[in-house]
């Protein structure tokens, strides 16, 4: 429920922001993307969801772990969005022994949540 309210409030504030900037319709493709990215960031930092900070340093997060590499320059490391998504969906495809949580395969995050997390990570 809290998530839901938060979700609405991000959407609303993005809408308000877009309105302030004088853009016509609030939910253009870009605004929707921005909302997804914001939500993706929230999911990535949420201890009960992605909790990526447990293992990765991510700009904007505090007390990061260092089991995995810092998530920086993601577009150059993962030019293809789908490859990045696959790494997050099930890291075992690239490294069968990985300690990284198979977020999609083990239903820790839903498909939509993984899309949003991937969009956020791709901006780093």
């Amino acid at each position, binding site marked *: 429920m809290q998530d839901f309210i938060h979700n609405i409030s991000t959407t609303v504030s993005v809408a308000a922001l877009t309105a302030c900037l004088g853009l016509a319709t609030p939910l253009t493709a870009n605004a929707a993307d921005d909302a997804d990215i914001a939500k993706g960031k929230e999911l990535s930092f949420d201890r009960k969801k992605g*909790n990526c*900070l*447990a*293992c990765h340093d991510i700009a904007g997060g505090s*007390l*990061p*772990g*260092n*089991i995995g590499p810092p998530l920086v320059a993601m577009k150059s490391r993962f030019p293809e969005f789908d490859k990045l998504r696959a790494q997050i969906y099930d890291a075992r495809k690239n490294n069968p022994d990985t*300690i990284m*949580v*198979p977020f999609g395969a*083990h*239903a*820790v995050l*839903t498909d939509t949540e993984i899309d949003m997390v991937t969009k956020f990570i791709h901006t780093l």
Partner: protein
Amino acid sequence: MKKYLAALSVLLMIATPVVSQASPEEDLKNFRAYFKDRFKDVPVEDYINGVYAIDQASREQWEQYEEFPPYEIYISKGEEIFNKKFANGKSFASCFPNYKKGIKQNYPYFDEASGQVVTMEGDINKCLTDNGEEAFKWQKGKIAYVGAYIAYLSRGKTINVKTPSTPAALAAYNKGKQHFYAKRGQLNMSCADCHYNNPGNKIRADILSPALGHPSGFPVYRNSWASSDAGDGMGTLHRRYGGCNKQVRAKPFKPQSDEYKALEYFHTYMSNGLKLNGPSLRK
């Protein structure tokens, strides 16, 4: 609902690891060599201090706290309970004739007659029930106090788990080894992922301890076990196992289940030759 079912099914899912078929002696040698190589400056006898063996900053803070150890009153409570007469006039000493000399170093051991791994906690409760008393709860409270007293009297003794040699003992050992290396829970992590592959690394703000030396300090007083719903701080090794299983969203096994006794058997055997220093203090 579908998501719930999916989550449930992964909770029950455990990947079977490919664990080596090495003998216990070889395992022990390799385990030791691995940590020696990984932390070249850490003397092997220091591993009994958990994460403080490898992290200087938290070690200093810990040493300060150890000057007035919060577990001390529980050693006294344990002593009191230990010496209190049962209804039949006997006391714990009747089951542990050598307790003053230190006995914890021989736990756990494999008992051929019953086909079971025997733990110190198991023997504490067996003493109670054999004498017509009610058993203690397994994870905290009186069992941890009596355990702390016995551990205290055993401080400085060298962990001396007998090498499993019979087929039944080896089966229990291998079951524990399997647990240690098997990925489990929705988050799909093994004990080894955190305490063998990543000691010294940080998971969020926590520095992971090496598995070598893990059992030496138990029972422990943990700050995070001291709160209105967690208890007075004291807890057993199996309480810790349950906590670490839960962290990866796996269903914990029951304390003193065959599964955890087997894990303790393997886990403690890996620390053979190190000194006991329980009870101790942990974050």
